[in-house]
Structure formats: C-alpha cells, structure tokens
C-alpha cells in the first residue's frame, strides 16, 4: 500500500511541471495623464507656456504651417497567458491615454482632444472579450 502511495506521489510530482502554468505581465510607456490638468486649460486663453507648465514636455510636436499640435500619451499593455504542455494561450490588451493640443499661430491653445483609456486595459484569456470591438 505504501509503495502505491509513493508511486502516485512520484507520478504527480512528474506531472506537475508538464501541466505548465499561467503568467501575467504589464508594460507601461510614459506617465499617466491626468484629466484635471487638461481640464484647467482653456482654448482661446491658455498659452504654450501654460500648457508646458501644466503637462510638461510633449512626446511629439507637429508643425501645421504657422500653427502646431502637441501630443502627450501614456500606454498600458497587459498580457495574460496560460501554458499547457505544448499549447500556450496569450491575450494582449494595449490601451492608451492620449492628449493632442492644437495651437494657433500665436501659440494660444485653439482646441484639444483627450482620450483616457489606459486604465481600461485588462488581463484576460483569448476567449474573453471585455471590450466591445466592432
């Protein structure tokens, strides 16, 4: 009886590594954007200096004739995987905070657009779909 129990334990020990495992990883690019900082900026009034003071240096500047646009972004990538012997299932979700500030020819904020989705990146397996993708 004792021999049979030991054999079962050995079999289980050998099988455990073959069953594989799961993993989670997270990558981020840049620091999160804060809605309240951009909300304090007023189109038609705020200047480039004020935007710099509020948000720091942009990640990209695009010249638009005498006007310009500045981009701020923060990216979150969440990856979840499950490894079963020879099959690996992986889901990767990349979401972003973005802010584009458009300035007129005098360096005054003309308008801006904000998307704050980075917090909505999720860990899930490939058969799940928490985002409503068209």
């Amino acid at each position, binding site marked *: 009886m004792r021999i049979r129990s030991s054999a079962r334990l050995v079999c289980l020990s050998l099988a455990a590594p073959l069953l594989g495992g799961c993993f989670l990883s997270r990558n981020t690019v840049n620091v999160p954007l804060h809605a309240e900082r951009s909300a304090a900026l007023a189109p038609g009034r705020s200047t480039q200096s004020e935007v710099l003071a509020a948000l720091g240096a942009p990640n990209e500047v*695009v010249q638009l004739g005498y006007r310009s646009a500045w981009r701020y972004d923060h990216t979150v990538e969440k990856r979840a995987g499950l490894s079963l012997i020879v099959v690996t299932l992986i889901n990767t979700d*990349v979401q972003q905070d973005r802010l584009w500030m458009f300035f007129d020819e005098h360096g005054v904020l003309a308008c801006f657009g904000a998307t704050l989705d980075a917090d909505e990146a999720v860990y899930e397996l490939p058969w799940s779909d928490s985002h409503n993708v068209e």
Partner: protein
Amino acid sequence: MSAAGRRPAAALALAVSALTLCSCVRARYQKITLLRPIASAAEAELAPGTELSACLAQLGAPNYVWEQPGGAVAVAYAWSRSVGWGLGVSGTVVRNVDASFNYDDLSADTRGLVLWFDTRWRLERLERGRIRDVAAPLGRARPNLPTPPRGDADARPNQPR
C-alpha cells in the same frame, strides 16, 4: 497490423513525444487588442464643415496628426485586433503578431478613421479603412508654411508665450 507495420508508427509517435516533451514544438493561440475602434454612430454624426474642436470632442484624441499644404491638417484614429494560431519549432514562432504600438510603423492589420480638415480646420471629408492604405498619401511631410499674412510682420508664430 503486423509487428513490422507497427514499428514505424511507434517510432514516429516516440519522435513526436520527444519533441513535444522537451518543448521543441509549441502551439500558440494569441489575441491582441490595440486601442479602441471609433464607433460608427460617433462617425455618422460628423458632417463636412464640422470644426476640429467639435470632432475632437466627439471622437477624443487622435493617434496621428499630419500637416497638409497651406496649414490644413489631417488626423487619424487607429486600432487593430488580431486573433490566430501560431506554431513554433525550437523557440521560433512561425507566425506571430506584434503587440507593440509604434507611432512610426503602421501594421497591415491596423484599421482606422482618417479626417481631413481645410486651412480653417473645418472637416472636408473622412474615410474609414486600413489606415496604411487610407493615409498612405499623408505620411510625414516636411513643414509646409503658408504665405505670412500682410501687416503681420511683428508676429512671431509658434513662440511660446
């Protein structure tokens, strides 16, 4: 089946088992979601003549902004979703998908919505599709400065104030 006929099958099974047990052969099922698509309903509310500010309020911040001749502008929203199987041998995945989002490199799977605005930043037209095709003529152009307005010699555009 004779013993001679069973021998090759057993050898094949043994070889496959050996390869899989030492993880030389691996199958991978992968789904990658990059950003959120723009809803068709939101797009339908945009008509030619809509100001850039109203479009940004409706759609959020774009992924790309490109300069167009005379101070006009084009913006693009991008997203992609890839699902598929891959097979790897000795750690080399035969088919794989790239999960990174790179502003300088649009993949063939990246879809999007591109909006073109005139020099007064009013919507001229918009187009949805594979963003690499739709936005192919836009690219990264060199600055295209319009003629300075008359009597504005003292203006120093784009100087931080």
